């Protein structure tokens, strides 16, 4: 029987020890009416060879598009060593490291991860991950509301340049506790403060994204100082790879942001249709007791030798129950394992090169595409993503590109109708000059061909 080691002899000997006649008898406490005989709708089991063939065919059918989309998930190169090691059984099949002596591998790795994330964001401490960037953003908002001693506001100020998905998710999660999200408007793709007045009231925090969802670089120093002058905490939502190049949240403004969070996927996690990824969260040391999620600390053992253990567990649901900082239990541990290996392989210089190359490639892409009539760049400068505006609808172009195996970007018309027929594009370090050329050629064909003729 698949995955079940018992021989028939085992079963009868075991039933004898228990003192019942059959396995079914062990379920005799289930009231009669609630019993079901089986799961006919699930169908028969497949051998490993059969399911392997099915999955291989499906995966082959899906293929891989030449990817010029970012918008929250990025096609970076993942060194082979990352997943060859992360999927070692000792990492893959271990539980949360509650028994520290039997989990030093995972614990030390998380400690190293915390150190790296603190270094990247320029803050003091990090947790062991949240589900993804969007939920990390939501948790950061809740954390700020709890942590801000200077304000009793249950409102968090953010901006229209924050990822629309993050804002959606945060609203789903914050609503329960009556925490509200308010958005600052944009000017030229950047968060604008001009319209904000005293009558807009008190906020627990300001949350900004750097680079923002439109690929723009916010004036983080100014925004940070502005918010902290108004007793808000500052939350920076950052692309971790870009942090190898950009000023870290801990260095924003006079005092530095208070909390940083974001999507960890760029750090060695495959695109994989959207998950599993991981959210990271770091903060200044005084806020650590309001932090959600697991934390590892270094300490010593009975013999005085260094070792690692979960700490500050009094924040967590398994100890504090209804008064925990969050309900999170299972997090994205294995992704953290991969990211830690990834960052170790790349180092600061490697990560910086990746970031710089993304910027350079996206510039090359923008140059190539804006060379076509009817395509203009919305804002400049941009970081690793850019907004292009078209003189025709974007959706049919994306369909046409897709038929040729190109994922042309993310259509902004629904989230940002004010930008017109706009497309968010991204060329990571994975895209070659030839790839960019190909995109331009195919797009040109689509924009001059019957499609356009019909449209116009």
């Amino acid at each position, binding site marked *: 029987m698949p995955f079940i080691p018992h021989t028939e002899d085992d079963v009868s000997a075991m039933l004898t020890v228990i003192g019942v006649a059959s396995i079914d008898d062990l379920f005799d406490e289930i009231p009669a009416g609630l019993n079901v005989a089986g799961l006919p709708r699930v169908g028969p089991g497949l051998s490993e060879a059969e399911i392997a063939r099915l999955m291989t065919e499906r995966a082959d059918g899906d293929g891989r598009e030449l990817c010029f989309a970012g918008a929250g998930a990025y096609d970076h190169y993942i060194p082979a060593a990352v997943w060859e090691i992360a999927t070692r059984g000792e990492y893959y*099949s271990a539980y949360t490291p509650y028994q520290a002596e039997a989990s030093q591998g995972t614990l030390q790795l998380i400690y190293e991860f915390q150190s790296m994330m603190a270094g990247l964001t320029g803050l003091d401490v990090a947790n062991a991950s949240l589900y993804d960037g969007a939920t990390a953003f939501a948790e950061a908002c809740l954390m700020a509301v709890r942590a801000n001693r200077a304000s009793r506001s249950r409102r968090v100020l953010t901006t229209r340049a924050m990822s629309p998905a993050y804002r959606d998710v945060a609203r789903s999660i914050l609503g329960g506790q009556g925490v509200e999200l308010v958005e600052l408007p944009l000017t030229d793709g950047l968060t604008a403060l001009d319209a904000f007045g005293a009558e807009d009231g008190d906020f627990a925090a300001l949350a900004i994204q750097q680079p923002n969802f439109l690929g723009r670089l916010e004036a983080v120093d100014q925004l940070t100082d502005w918010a902290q002058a108004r007793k808000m905490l500052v939350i920076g939502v950052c692309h971790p790879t870009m942090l190898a190049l950009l000023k870290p949240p801990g260095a924003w403004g006079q005092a530095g942001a208070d909390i940083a969070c974001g999507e960890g996927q760029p750090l060695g996690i495959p695109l994989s249709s959207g998950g599993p990824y991981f959210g990271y969260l770091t903060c200044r040391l005084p806020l650590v007791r309001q932090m959600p999620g697991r934390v590892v600390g270094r300490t010593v053992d009975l013999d005085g030798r260094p070792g690692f253990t979960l700490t500050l567990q009094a924040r967590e649901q398994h100890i504090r129950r209804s008064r925990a900082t969050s309900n999170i239990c299972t997090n994205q541990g294995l992704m953290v394992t991969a990211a830690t290996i990834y960052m*170790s392989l790349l180092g600061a210089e490697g990560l910086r090169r990746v970031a710089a190359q993304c910027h350079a490639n996206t510039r090359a892409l923008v140059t190539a595409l804006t060379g076509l009539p009817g395509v203009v760049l919305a804002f400049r400068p941009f970081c690793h993503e850019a907004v292009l505006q078209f003189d025709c609808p974007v959706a049919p172009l994306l369909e046409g590109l897709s038929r040729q195996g190109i994922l042309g970007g993310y259509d902004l018309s629904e989230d940002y109708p004010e930008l017109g027929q706009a497309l968010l594009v991204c060329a990571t370090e994975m895209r070659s000059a030839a790839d960019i050329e190909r995109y331009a050629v195919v797009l040109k064909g689509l924009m001059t061909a019957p499609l356009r003729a019909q449209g116009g």
Partner: protein
Amino acid sequence: MKTEPVIFEYSRPGRRAPSHAPAEAAGPGDLPAAVLRTDPPALPEVSELQAVRHFTRLSQLNFSIDTHFYPLGSCTMKYNPRACNRLAMLPGFLGRHPLGAVERGQGFLACMHELQEMLKAVTGMPGVSLTPMAGAQGELAGVAMIRAYHRARGDGARRVVIVPDAAHGTNPATAVMCGFEVREIPTDPSGDVDLEALRSAVGPDTAGIMLTNPSTLGVFERRIGEIAAIVHGVGGLLYYDGANLNAILGRALPAAMGFDVVHINLHKTFSTPHGGGGPGAGVVAVTQRLEPFLPVPMVTCEAGRYRWLTGRERPQSIGRLSAFMGNAGILLRAYVYMRMLGGEGMRRVSGFATLNANYLMAKLRESGFEIAFPGRRASHEFIVSLKGLSRETGVTAMDFAKALLDHGYHAPTTYFPLLVPECLLIEPTETESREELDGFVAALVAIRDLARRDPAQVKAAPLTTPVRRLDDVRAARDLDLTWQSKRPATGGA
């Protein structure tokens, strides 16, 4: 004993392993200096071999299913079939951008749709969303749906969620995150919910109750029908914490028990990896009345073509819970596992998980251990109480747990559920052999004998692990949460 330096201790300024990054460093281009970083981040500078060696050695310091029996109660540490991993990591699946064209994701979407259908069959519920990324997020989705349901009916007074004292910590924490008050009710001596307490706890302010059945005490809640009647009677809904579904797979359907919503930990029942803490998947299933509120997105199939249903098509949805669609890769692993099992295989899972638990319980009882609920069948797990032994010898459940590590077994869950003093919550799972269980019994007996003979020896355990017992107090007091290069290198050579 093995120690391994912290990776930063291998770091040397100027060490490069650039085969993983673009060979030529592009400049910052037109990025304004004001937004650039001045110092490089503190990442280790190591060679590829140093990284591989370090993380390989670190891995060897772990216990894991692949190396040890791991009877951690409530965690369902069963074998994670390697096929699930390999097939979920096929390049076609890994390389797909979440915003990629659905035409180029029909294979993936077909798996997701079939997974939804299998989950409906397993729960007896008509609606499913795959989005939640762990059990706790499934709980959040479920309780948020309960809240949305009451609100949609204009029923704003329901501000209490009832939770038995045996419940997992995520249950009360979730209720609070959803804006509810938690009302805890006790367990009766036989391990079932105290019905009288329940009756007096419910009322017009009851939004619902969160239950797991079998409960975390390892027994099946026999009067679930009555409980459902009581809660439904006052207009509340029933939430099923499906973390323990392994116990009843193909034996009983949450829907038939009267539950309105259920989450399932695919990383337990459906054997996706725990990964040293995650990721998981906490899919939710609901009865018809909660269907409109399910979190988006979910997969639909129209004329043989699969696509996502979005928020716009589901106006009453509680919304999105992840930036994209949840832990897709974990869902794929569960899908592969479920297809390999089939309906018969799933029923065998609960059968053998229960057989193993009851056998282990019987053997331990035979060996003189105190079973917390001796009059009951074990479900897929059960509780041993070491209260008497602890009083007699001073050796605690935690001491037992540590001593087991020296015998090459991971410890059961200790001190949960909290209501049983000095408890070990033991869940062997169906994938362990009888010999493994017998060896575990022998180890427990040996530890008990030693506890009686020389308790200090047990209290000194573990001795064979990479470190001995750690100073948790110091860890929480002298916080050392990140590597500081100035600190002396105490992590080993």
